[in-house]
């Protein structure tokens, strides 16, 4: 009897199959346009959407939908107004004065004021909150580090000042010619202080202010619902100053970790834009549905890091030999497949007009000569070298391809070792490796991001390499006010990097995704920011 009931239950469940499949999001019913809904694959489940607490990319996409900073960027990477309608920079490059627009509003109707920004920055610099991006502020703004370290307790002594409700003044420690671009990072975004106070205090990381029922933001969209690991629904904000430009009514963010799952959802019409494309499917999509494939530049460098204190990489000739002897063109064409750009330098090309003048070239004969000069003719006597990468199929196939190239071109044997992500990162920061896979994605668009990294002792350098002349040039670049002079100094720095090769550049990233041809006006900046307000979707 019981079994009969169970069988009937299952049969009924199967009957539901035909009638509960979701319809495409933006359809018309009876000639009346329904809401325009865009469904977006957003990678992993976001940690939170508090810009002062989180650090990841899925969080970045959400925060930039729900909040807005002082400035923004257009597709050509020009700085355009955000909450600030205009701004002035003092001749010495130290004082930035922002004039906030009168119609900038929070989603609860409150005006966005200069005081909101000052209080937001004060919160972010409160040590007890332990904001992981606090350094983005205290590395640049006068007095911010002292406040963070508790050396001063009066925030008025820092470089953040609200002159009046619509005028914000920020005074820097030293000129930072890239500051306006850096301000596109959500670390510089404001938060609604009264809401945070109401739900547990300014210096608490774990509060309920970011729950949909409590959240107040100032961006083009507001948070409507959040079902963990299922979907986050945002809808057009009725209070956003530029709301007339916003065309899509609702954007749904799906946290989908597996590229294959995402692809199947895209294929069955459940997603309009994916976060990734499975490598094995890319060629098929390019052949069958080229309009659905989109590859955008992504300001990031994929490289291998040498530990210059470990043999044999304490010898620059070995480092250069390895870097010169691989076929990057073949790698991106046959292995990585997503139009990545082979890297023969240290900065993505044409970053704000910066073009490397000191790129190296692949040169197997020279690589062999260097290796022989280092004492390993044709690879003989080359010590045991282990290449460490984090466990991921893509890194594995790249490492195997390069391993083979070195075996063939130099006669050296490199063994491969993979580790789980956190173990691998721990090995990196404790410099417990010989030779390691790495990647660096810019936080903001400026070549500085890629030069700052190799300063002696920089927390993310991790190569044990340092060069006093390089450090001196880095600091002198910051004190120049125009990009031409600054970029000329970067050229000299890049020359040092090419000569000493503390890391081995492999390729510059791209971001490949599937996108429905119904989506219009969607663009991304090279640091993967999406200004959703320009996007539209056909019914």
């Amino acid at each position, binding site marked *: 009897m019981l079994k009969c009931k*169970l*069988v009937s*239950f*299952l049969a009924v*469940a*199967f009957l*539901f*199959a*035909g*009638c*509960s*499949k*979701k319809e495409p999001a933006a359809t018309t019913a009876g000639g009346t346009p329904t809401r325009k809904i865009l469904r977006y694959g957003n990678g992993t*489940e976001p*940690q*939170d959407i*508090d810009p002062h*607490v*989180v*650090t990841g990319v899925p969080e970045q996409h959400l925060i930039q939908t729900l909040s807005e900073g002082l400035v923004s960027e257009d597709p050509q990477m020009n700085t355009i107004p955000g909450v600030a309608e205009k701004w002035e920079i003092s001749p010495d490059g130290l004082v930035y004065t922002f004039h906030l627009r009168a119609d900038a509003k929070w989603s609860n109707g409150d005006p966005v004021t200069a005081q909101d920004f000052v209080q937001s920055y004060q919160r972010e610099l409160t*040590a*007890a*909150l*332990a*904001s*992981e991006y*606090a*350094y983005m502020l205290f590395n640049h703004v006068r007095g911010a580090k002292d406040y*963070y*370290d508790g050396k001063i307790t009066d925030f008025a002594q820092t470089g953040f000042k609200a002159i009046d409700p619509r005028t914000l003044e920020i005074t820097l420690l030293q000129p930072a010619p890239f500051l306006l671009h850096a301000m596109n990072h959500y670390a510089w975004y404001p938060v609604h202080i009264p809401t945070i106070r109401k739900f547990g205090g300014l210096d608490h*990381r*774990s*509060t*309920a*202010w*970011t729950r949909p029922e409590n959240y107040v933001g100032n961006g083009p969209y507001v948070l409507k619902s959040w*079902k*963990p*690991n*299922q979907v986050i629904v945002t809808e057009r904000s009725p209070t956003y100053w530029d709301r007339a430009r916003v065309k899509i009514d609702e954007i749904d963010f799906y946290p*989908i970790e*597996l590229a294959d*799952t995402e692809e*199947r*959802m895209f*294929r*069955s019409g*459940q997603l309009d834009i994916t976060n990734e494309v499975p490598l094995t499917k890319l060629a098929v999509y390019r052949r069958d549905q080229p309009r659905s494939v989109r590859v955008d530049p992504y300001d990031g460098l994929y490289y291998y890091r040498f530990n210059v204190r470990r043999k044999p990489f304490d010898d620059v000739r070995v480092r250069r030999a390895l870097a010169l002897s691989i076929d990057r063109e073949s790698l991106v064409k046959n292995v990585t497949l997503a139009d990545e750009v082979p890297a023969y330098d240290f900065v993505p090309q044409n970053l704000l007009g910066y073009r490397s003048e000191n790129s190296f070239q692949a040169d197997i004969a020279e690589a062999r000569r260097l290796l022989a000069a280092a004492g390993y003719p044709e690879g003989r006597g080359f010590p045991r070298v282990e290449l460490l990468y984090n466990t991921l199929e893509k890194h594995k196939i790249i490492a195997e391809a390069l391993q083979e190239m070195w075996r063939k071109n130099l006669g050296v044997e490199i063994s491969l070792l993979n580790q789980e*992500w*956190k*173990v691998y*990162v*721990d*090995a*990196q*920061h404790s410099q417990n490796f010989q030779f390691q896979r*790495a*990647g660096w994605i810019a936080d903001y668009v400026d070549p500085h991001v890629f030069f700052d990294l190799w300063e002696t002792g920089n*927390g*993310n350098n991790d190569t044990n390499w340092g060069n006093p002349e390089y450090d001196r040039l880095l600091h002198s670049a910051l004190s120049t006010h125009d990009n031409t002079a600054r970029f000329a100094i970067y050229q000299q720095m890049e020359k040092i990097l090419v000569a000493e090769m503390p890391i081995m550049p492999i390729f510059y990233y791209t971001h490949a995704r599937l996108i429905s041809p119904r989506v219009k006006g969607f663009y991304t900046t090279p640091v993967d920011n999406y200004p959703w307000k320009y996007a539209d979707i056909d019914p």
Partner: protein
Amino acid sequence: MLRFIARRLLETIPVLFVILTATFFMIRFVPGGPFTAEKAVTPEVMRNLERAYDLDKPLWQQYTRYLRNVLLHGDLGPSFKYPNRTVNEIIAGKLPVSLELGAEALVLALVLGLTLGVLAAVKNNTWIDYVCSSAAMTGICLPTFVLGPLLVLLFAIHLGWVNASGWDGPADRILPCLTLGCVYAAYIARLTRGGMLEVLSQDYIRTARAKGASEVRVIFKHALRGGLLPVVSFLGPAIAGILTGSFVIETIFQIPGLGREFVNSAFNRDYTLVLGTVILYATLIIGLNLLVDVVQVWLNPKLKFE
């Protein structure tokens, strides 16, 4: 029987305590921590982060504080990975999803597995047995990460009957339950067949037949009870596994269940979430094993509660 259950429940307390303690210290000795990231934070930021989560305190202090919070307040602490959620909230939100998926898959597995197993045993060495046994073997050999996407290809993409993934409507339950249920069904079918074959050759079955009992009565009244014993032993840990979620199924079908948290919390070094899910999983396994023991005594007259 009550004394047996009470004694077993008392034994559970030290077991859980050992599991909790071992997990607490083991996860702390794994390289990397909750805030280990490729983009290193500055040393002062790291100090503040550790202070915010009491990680700067000696380990024994953290341990006693954790124990106190769990025992006195039932508070499993805040998640390290998801700052605006507590571990209690995460488990409360996700366990029901895993329970629902697990229960539905279990029902399917039992119906399908028992039917195939009994059929195969009764029609031993006939084409029916071969078909059932082959189906069961295929189910065991076909991993969920192959079966799941195959079902999606057929039912979601080619036929368009259901969504490729998600957990909204009743139709979204079908493919994940089928995928998860089929694997367990295959095991159950094999075990049922083996158990039944053994029982069917026993003397008391011959006696039943000699007394003129109908074949249906012999199978369902006399043989099945004994034939199910191996299945019941298997079901204890299997139910715990099936109810606490499946990482693979939840990832393939985008299901907000506990299985993914169980695995990802270890990768994220989300200490509190690791502990919360381990305690829950351990409790379920212990509880279900106890239940299995009770059921086995009930099914097998040769066993006693001692």
